[in-house]
């Protein structure tokens, strides 16, 4: 690889490490480590949310999916964005009003039950792991392409770097890394979209006209149905995308980094604008890659299409743009992974260790050490799993994390805030039914079993027809919570009164 690529790449990595170092000096207490001391403004936090959200799947994955499958790739952009309306309307503000550090805290504002906390921590760690494997697999492919390194070495480098970020910086570091990275990513997107439009003389009609004859699909490229041919399968995927965000632990955690519900609200608004613009631009990247890189070259670099955006950068702006976009993609993955590790570590250190093992008596220092050891543990686990997931599709892994979040977490979040009769038995059954139905259905799906050798983990007929099971597992999560609640006698209406008042007014006891 040319020296420019390596120099620019290293420069951006050093820049983020420097920010991490300065942030580390400011991380004093447990609260700081988890939530940046509540000191971010709405706009800052919104950009950080966008930074967290625009992961390998959004940048590399969607650009590739649109390049290869036209309209069907754009489905991801739409679902990932509209998910923020669910967050804004139903979840963000009550969550801010109830939560402390983690999702389990919020649920426990209503139920002081260890089994609820345990179930929430379990689903958080599962979601984080799936999300993280996807990022590591994407990063591995990128570094493999850039430096010609072996895949395992590439994954190891990303893994070690993200661990350094989290161990030394905590949440302030990852918040600022997210902000820096979100800005760089948007700049990269805008430059590339501008160059693509330049090639089409800034005529969008011309662009549509040209891509019609640019791909192997011909006119079908602009029509839906190239990739998703089962109607219910498409709906299932769309359901996971739109409901998943409101249950993603590393996104929900960002609402605890601001001081009140109003700031949480303005965070979501900023995030929605940034993310929306980003996803509109994925269209130009996808079409650009389809027209100027070409189907065969994209497939040759990576069969999932994940290298479409970097390859397009090379065609449009030569080595310099290629290096810049690759470095931004790498920083993106690094930052997202750091955020993920942190929410996994919080679930472990705060919920499992702090509240269950130490029965809430762990000192701040003990918790902080536990969080750091947990970060290390979660990182090592993800690195090991990613080594075995080399041939799995990145977009599949991420949409699966969305599906688990929508099935296991969202029902409990909504019931906790809005349903008076809801109880601990309901909370535990909702989470476990959602989590395990999603996991079991996926393990029986076409992504795991395929009659074509090499297309999936095992050769055989899939028992479950859709690769994303949300259409079954989300209703099951809600049903589990409903049945678990009404079949057990326990009910505490007074506690709901408190939760409801706090959730909707933001009332807090003065400590």
């Amino acid at each position, binding site marked *: 690889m040319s020296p420019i690529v390596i120099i620019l790449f290293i420069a951006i990595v050093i820049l983020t490490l420097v920010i991490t170092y300065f942030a580390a000096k400011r991380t004093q207490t447990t609260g700081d480590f988890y939530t940046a001391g509540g000191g971010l403004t709405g706009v800052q936090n919104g950009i950080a949310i966008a930074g967290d959200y625009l992961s390998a799947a959004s940048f590399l994955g969607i650009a590739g999916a649109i390049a290869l499958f036209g*309209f069907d790739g*754009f*489905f991801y952009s*739409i*679902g990932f*964005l*509209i998910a*923020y*309306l*669910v967050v*804004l*309307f*139903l979840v963000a*503000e009550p969550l801010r009003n109830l939560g402390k550090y983690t999702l389990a805290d919020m649920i426990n504002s209503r139920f*002081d*039950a*260890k089994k609820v906390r345990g179930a929430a921590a379990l689903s958080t760690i599962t979601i984080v792991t799936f999300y993280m494997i996807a990022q590591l697999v994407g990063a591995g492919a990128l570094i493999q392409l850039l430096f010609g390194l072996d895949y395992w070495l590439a994954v190891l480098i990303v893994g070690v770097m993200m661990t350094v970020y989290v161990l030394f910086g905590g949440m302030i570091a990852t918040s600022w890394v997210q902000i820096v990275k979100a800005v760089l990513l948007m700049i990269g997107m805008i430059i590339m979209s501008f160059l693509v439009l330049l090639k089409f003389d800034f005529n*969008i*009609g011309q662009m*549509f*006209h040209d891509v*019609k004859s640019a791909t192997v699909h011909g006119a079908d490229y*602009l*029509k*839906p*149905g190239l990739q*998703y041919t089962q*109607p219910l399968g*498409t*709906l299932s995927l*769309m359901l996971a995308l*739109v409901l998943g965000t409101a249950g993603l632990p590393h996104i929900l955690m960002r609402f605890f980094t601001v001081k009140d519900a*109003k700031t949480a*609200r*303005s965070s*979501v*608004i900023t995030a*929605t*604008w940034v993310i*929306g613009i980003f*996803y*509109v631009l994925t269209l130009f990247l996808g079409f650009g890659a389809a027209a100027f890189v070409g189907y065969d070259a994209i497939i040759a670099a990576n069969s999932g299409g994940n290298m479409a955006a970097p390859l397009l950068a090379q065609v449009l702006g030569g080595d310099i743009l290629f290096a810049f976009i690759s470095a931004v993609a790498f920083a993106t993955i690094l930052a997202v992974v750091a955020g993920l590790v942190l929410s996994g570590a919080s679930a472990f250190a705060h919920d499992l260790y702090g509240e269950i093992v130490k029965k809430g008596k762990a000192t701040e220092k003990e918790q902080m050490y536990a969080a750091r050891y947990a970060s290390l543990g979660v990182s090592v686990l993800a690195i090991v799993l990613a080594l075995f997931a080399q041939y799995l599709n990145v977009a599949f892994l991420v949409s699966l994390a969305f599906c688990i979040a929508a099935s296991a977490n969202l029902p409990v979040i909504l019931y906790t805030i809005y349903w008076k009769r809801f109880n*601990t038995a309901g909370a535990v059954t909702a989470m476990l039914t959602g989590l395990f139905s999603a996991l079991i259905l996926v393990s029986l799906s076409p992504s795991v079993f395929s009659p074509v050798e090499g297309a999936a983990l095992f050769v055989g007929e899939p028992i479950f027809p859709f690769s994303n099971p949300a259409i079954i597992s989300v209703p099951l999560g809600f049903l589990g919570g409903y049945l678990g609640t009404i079949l057990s006698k*326990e009910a*505490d*209406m*007074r*506690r*709901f*009164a*408190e939760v*409801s*008042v*706090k959730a*909707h*007014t*933001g*009332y807090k*006891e003065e400590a």
Partner: protein
Amino acid sequence: MDMAVNQEYDKARDNGNTVDFEKAANSNAFKKLLEDRKKFILPLTIFFLIFYFLLPILTSYTTFLNTPAIGDISWVWIFAISQFAMTWILCTIYVKKANTFDEQAEQIVEEIKRGGDSK
């Protein structure tokens, strides 16, 4: 375990450390806030979910969105882009409305604090 929690909770109430949330929850001001929020959020949520799912439903079961709208751009692309426009419009409407909810919530919090002191 829930018994124990309830006992502790009652103890806290007896000590006067906790506000009477049931009273607050049953107050007219709070009921009105919930009602207003529901009246605003529920119809919009139903609307955007229908609008959203209409896209995959129409593309899966019909082909009429494939008819050209502007040159080579077919209606399916117009519908897809309109999803973005809808998101931004609903965000803006929500922020405007949420400010009135903030005022209502502030008054309720004031009321709780006064009630807590006089107890």
